[in-house]
């Protein structure tokens, strides 16, 4: 049993932040790695990337968007409630090196994961440029945290209610055109955003890493449900990822695979309401 120490609602209650007491995981987890949790006995196992950790007090932070049955169930939990199972750390940590200037692109809930990787890159001595985006001002999360980490930060919103109007790709393009010292781009967010970022950076031939989020069950390489096509080879996201070279990922296939269970999700939600 893992206790929720603190719960915080963000972005009009659609994005939730939990601080969970899990000392062993907190001691080991690195930026980019994820955990698998199961809320209760009848629950499903879902993967969530860890946004932050505190080894000293044994706390890991997860930030997730409410999209289906399990995340809705998680939202109904409060401070002091417990989660039945948390397994981790899983996946490979992000490969953090001193490269020079790197751009961190994040969209929606992806900013939560991006922030821990950005932090690691900053600590490694890189010049970090952040570009984060959301649909509207209310849905933007972790702006202040990103501001503290990044040397430069650009915010975009789809409707122009805050920061620049438009998508994250626009300021990214501007940076890529203006600066010649960019060594790497990290993009984490909705699949469509990562796909577009990769399309753009490919033109400029800049290495791009993305963090994928396919459907998973066990998270330890056992089921093969999270298979993704990278460089035309089958990879298991849970053991070979979750971070991959964005130029080699087959995003179309990932998008299709992630849409497979939408109908079941509806049945499950309706059942729980009854």
């Amino acid at each position, binding site marked *: 049993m893992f206790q929720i120490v603190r719960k915080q609602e963000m972005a009009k209650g659609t994005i939730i932040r939990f601080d969970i007491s899990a000392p062993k995981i907190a001691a080991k987890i690195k930026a980019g790695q994820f955990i698998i949790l199961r809320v209760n006995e009848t629950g499903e196992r879902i993967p969530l990337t860890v946004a932050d950790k505190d080894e000293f007090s044994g706390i890991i932070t997860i930030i997730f968007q409410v999209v289906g049955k399990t995340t809705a169930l998680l939202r109904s939990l409060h401070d002091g409630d417990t989660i039945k199972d948390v397994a981790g750390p899983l996946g490979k940590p992000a490969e953090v090196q001193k490269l020079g200037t790197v751009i961190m692109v994040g969209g929606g809930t992806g900013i939560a994961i991006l922030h821990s990787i950005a932090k690691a890159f900053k600590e490694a001595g890189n010049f970090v440029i952040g570009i984060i985006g959301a649909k509207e001002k209310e849905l933007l999360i972790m702006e202040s945290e990103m501001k503290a980490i990044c040397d430069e930060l650009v915010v975009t919103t789809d409707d122009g209610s805050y920061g620049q109007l438009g998508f994250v790709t626009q300021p990214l393009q501007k940076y890529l055109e203006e600066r010649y010292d960019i060594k790497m781009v990290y993009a984490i967010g909705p699949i469509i955003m990562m796909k577009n970022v990769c399309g753009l950076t490919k033109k400029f031939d800049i290495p791009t890493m993305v963090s994928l989020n396919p459907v998973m069950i066990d998270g330890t390489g056992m089921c*093969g449900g999270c298979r993704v096509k990278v460089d035309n080879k*089958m990879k298991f996201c849970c053991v070979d990822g979750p971070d991959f070279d964005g130029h080699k990922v087959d995003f179309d296939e990932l998008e299709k695979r992630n849409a497979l269970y939408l109908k*079941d999700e509806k*049945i499950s939600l309706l059942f729980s309401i009854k």
Partner: protein
Amino acid sequence: MADQDVKYLKFKTYLNAYCPYCHESFNVEKKEVKQLNFKAVYKGQEVSVKLSPYLDVFEIETSVPINEGEVLDDLVCPHCNKSLINRDMVCGECGNTVAQVIISALSRLIPFFICLKRGCEWHGLTKADERRIKLKIPRQDMPEQDKTMRIHNHQEVPYGYRSELASLEAGRCLQCKTPGCVEGCPVNVDIPSFIKLMREDDYDGAAKKIKEKNVLPAICGRVCPQENQCEAKCVLGLKDKPVAIGKLERFVADYERKMDLVRIPVIKNKINKRIAVVGSGPGGLTVAADMAQFGYAVTVFEASHELGGVLTYGIPEFRLPKSIVQFEISYLKELGVRFELNHVIGNILTIDELLVHFDAVYIGVGAGLPLFMDIEGESLGNVFSSNEYLTRMNLMKAYKFPEYDTPMPKGNKVVVIGGGNVAMDSARTAIRTGSTEVTVIYRRSRNELPARMEEVHHAEEEGVRFRLLVSPVRYIGTDYNMVKSVECIRMELGEPDASGRRRPVPIENSNFIIECDLAVVAIGTGPNPIIFRTAPNLKRNKWGYIEVDPETNETSIPNVYAGGDIVTGSATVIQAMGAGRIAANAMHKKLKGK
């Protein structure tokens, strides 16, 4: 006629034989020698014939050598000199003349025929008696759930023996002096002794006898491939079917559990040393139990949220009820074994870190990385690895969706690729989800099917169809990226390959299409890379499995042992347990010496 009216003459029953005319006995007993004495006529010459008095034992001594296949002219009572030949009967096997004697058995006198041809081992009863008396106890089948009913539920298929059936089956055992069955068992259960205890109606004692060597009898009785192990070595199997050792094992284990006779042994000599076991599958549980019984403090680490490894996520409920797995594990808990769930070793703790806190480590993580064929369309919706399919159904209990949150993969027409036990489990699970058509595709022929015959038989009974000598080429999807059909190619068997099986070769231009809306790929598994990332000095072979010393199962890192699928590649539950046993004994020997 009701079952209970049938009486059995057990194998090797001592027969008292009498002349039908003068009623004198043919039996002669001199010290050690027990015989039936007759006179016979052979080529006009009078000879004496001595037969063994035991049913189904064919030792013949004659005063004149008689060649195999030759027929005696007459068999005569040595007391009244009357011919015993019965002209109304002929041998049921070779059609030669037979002699008739009277035997006393089952508290009555019964006419009994013996064939006069040397080498023919036929003997029989009159038609009227045959209906009520069987000369041998046949191998007893377990009653099982009717096939039309069981495809609609996930309950266990065989019900297990009743005590009458169990005692009949136990009666078939010959109690060999040098038992082959014990050799055939990877953990060397003392099979004749436990069957002997069963014959004395001491089922509890029999269960304790098995537990001396095997801590998980209820599981092994159900899922071991006995036909390749203990039962393959049974002497009875030469002429008849072997003793149903697995079914007897299951019976006594179930008896012990249901009658609440399980007792936790008191461990007297506690040893102040700690053992870490990675993986709570059958091998890990065996090591844990053995080491706990030696007196060590044992901690088992499990990556999943449920204990049991393949017993829990892999083998379906209808073949191995999860309550039984949990019960067997609770026995270990009471032995003092500690279990840590949600611990992915290699990530949360490395092998090196374990060695700091523990005196020895056992790696029994299995081979859990599913293999795919790497053909077009494998990433379509509703194409699953058998691991994913079975994990969803068993571990996550998707068959109870939406009560449980994990969605149930369901299809009308299901195709399962592969011919092993996992393929059978997947196919039979699919039948139970209401699929109308389940087809198993296997690239070799029926003779090469690696699955247990019992499983193939059960699957066929339940309506699973087999397409043999067929291999998939690609999956074809709908506009919504769900699998629609699978294109296959026919195969033929060519020369034998390294494994000794004939290699399947595709027949060109023989492609055809099987429609399906769900496909399960059950073609095997490989080693999982997680544990090796943080233990680069763990030596592995060319297939990526851990290399061990076969005597001790110790790896290239001192005090780190390994066994089961992570050493051998996919194998059976009991083989993993056997490997665990070897490692536990070696560990104990090494640690005790320090």
